[in-house]
């Protein structure tokens, strides 16, 4: 490696790296690069956990993320809602994050109303909205849902909504799914929800990549299925769409859309790491030679 190249690498302006990363993400998106996905055991476990819920049962979906993490978590949330509706499950939406309610509303508009227009509010799905209190919300819901949520998000009393009128505690739900970006999230659902009533319902979780290490200890015992980052979302989408195809695959296929740029960006990072190490080794050998 020549001295000038070595000097350039050692003093590389980080903006060149930013430019390379920008191109590595933009070009695959513009060229619509797609790659085959092979569902792994966690995605399969999540799919099977939802499939195992009897038709007509009620499930609870907790949207514990905000717009910042939507790029990573929205694909799995959309696929999960579609899967539940395709299985004719009754869905109760809620959020432990203040902005999670808006994310749930958006998912209801884009997925539920679009692909399942027969779903009626109050009888097939309900939006409970956001409640402050973090894990305190889960603790109270474990024993007394009406005490925690007296009305839905638009102020209608739960007693006048047929789907949730008779709900007393979390055991009314056959499945609880938390799409979480941090605290509070899937971990708190396992600790305080599953911890309070271990056999009453199944829990599946979706999380960002950095959170996986905190959630893995709970899989597969306390958490039957887990979707990790965009890869998990892409694998789950494949399974859902294979069995329950939709007219607009781009709505339920955003995880797979993101895998193209992810591949190129990861290869770029490997190349950068190798380049950096080559520069270091070349620098050391020159220093040793002198």
């Amino acid at each position: 490696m020549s001295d000038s190249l070595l000097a350039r690498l050692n003093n590389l302006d980080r903006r060149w790296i930013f430019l390379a990363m920008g191109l590595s993400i933009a070009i695959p998106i513009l060229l619509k690069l797609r790659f085959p996905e092979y569902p792994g055991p966690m995605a399969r476990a999540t799919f099977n956990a939802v499939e195992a819920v009897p038709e007509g049962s009620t499930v609870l979906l907790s949207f514990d993320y905000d717009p910042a993490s939507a790029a990573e978590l929205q694909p799995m949330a959309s696929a999960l809602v579609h899967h539940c509706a395709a299985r004719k499950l009754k869905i109760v939406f809620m959020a432990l994050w203040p902005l999670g309610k808006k994310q749930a509303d958006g998912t209801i508009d884009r997925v539920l109303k679009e692909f399942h227009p027969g779903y009626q509010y109050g009888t097939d799905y309900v939006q409970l909205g956001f409640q402050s209190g973090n894990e305190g919300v889960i603790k109270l819901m474990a024993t007394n849902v009406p005490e925690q949520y007296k009305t839905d998000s638009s102020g209608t009393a739960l007693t006048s909504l047929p789907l949730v009128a008779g709900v007393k505690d979390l055991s009314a739900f056959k499945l609880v799914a938390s799409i979480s970006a941090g605290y509070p999230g899937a971990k708190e659902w396992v600790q305080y929800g599953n911890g309070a009533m271990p056999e009453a319902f199944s829990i599946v979780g979706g999380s960002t990549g950095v959170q996986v290490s905190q959630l893995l200890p709970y899989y597969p015992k306390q958490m039957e299925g887990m979707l990790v980052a965009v890869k998990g979302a892409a694998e789950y989408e494949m399974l859902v769409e294979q069995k329950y195809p939709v007219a607009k695959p781009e709505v339920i296929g955003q995880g797979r859309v993101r895998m193209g740029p992810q591949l190129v960006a990861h290869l770029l990072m490997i190349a950068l790491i190798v380049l950096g190490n080559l520069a270091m080794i070349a620098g050391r050998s020159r220093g040793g030679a002198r």
Partner: protein
Amino acid sequence: MTATTMQRSLTTTVAAALLVLSQPALAQAPEAATQDWIRTDRLPLLLVIVLVASAVAAAIALARSGRPVKIRRLAALDAVDEAIGRATEMGRSVLFVPGIQDMTDIQTVAGVTILGRVAKTAAEYDAKLEVPTCRSIVMSAARDAVRAAHFEAGRPETYTDANINYLTDEQFGYVAAVTGSMVRDKPAACFYMGAFYAESLLFAENGNSIGAIQIAGTAEPSQLPFFVAACDYTLIGEEFFAASAYLSGERDQLGSIQGQDLGKLFAAAVIVIGCALATAGIWIPKLAGGADALRKYFGG
């Protein structure tokens, strides 16, 4: 009446009102007498708490009795003086970020405690210390800590509220504001001590781009790798909680760190015994039952 006095009066009045208003909650207590008064399923955890607390208390008692307390050096904390001295020499400020959570998070409490120590050193060196906060209560606590530090350093006249401000509760709004001020003001030393989430790498890389010396500490396992990769020194997990005691130098607090280590030994012993039983249980089924019992007792 100063603004600070108004703050304190308001807070005290509200607290007193809360005390009065909470009487109904106290009146509710007798109703629970008809239920089981103690959660027997949580007794194993109570046993662990008693063991750990006893270890800490015993270590503190031993430290008070004069027994020497040896704590290994923490490079990150030894570098605090160096970092602040560097900032003073360069005529630039010191930035301290106490995390993005509220005072209910023990990491924020630990961060504000370390802020007191850092502020004392900054006051002694006459360095400008900036503390942008993500929560209003943290701003109040930080102001108290820094004011106390200036008094302790014998420099009460150099304290000013102006450098400790509340920005916003919104995570990325806070990050945008702090990183923007980092790029404009170019602090020479940056401290990140508290609870951080996705913004940890944003802070650390920005600090690196302006050439600041960076010392971080957090107990968020998912963010530790980012700080370790991008900062000059990192306090990992329990080192962060030990930092306050380490910096104080007080025998009681150093003793509590030793008690914490005793608790770790206990946890390690249980893990080793459990693994040994589970492994031996492959060949001797009776021992597998022992491992299961241990798992059920401690794991629920």
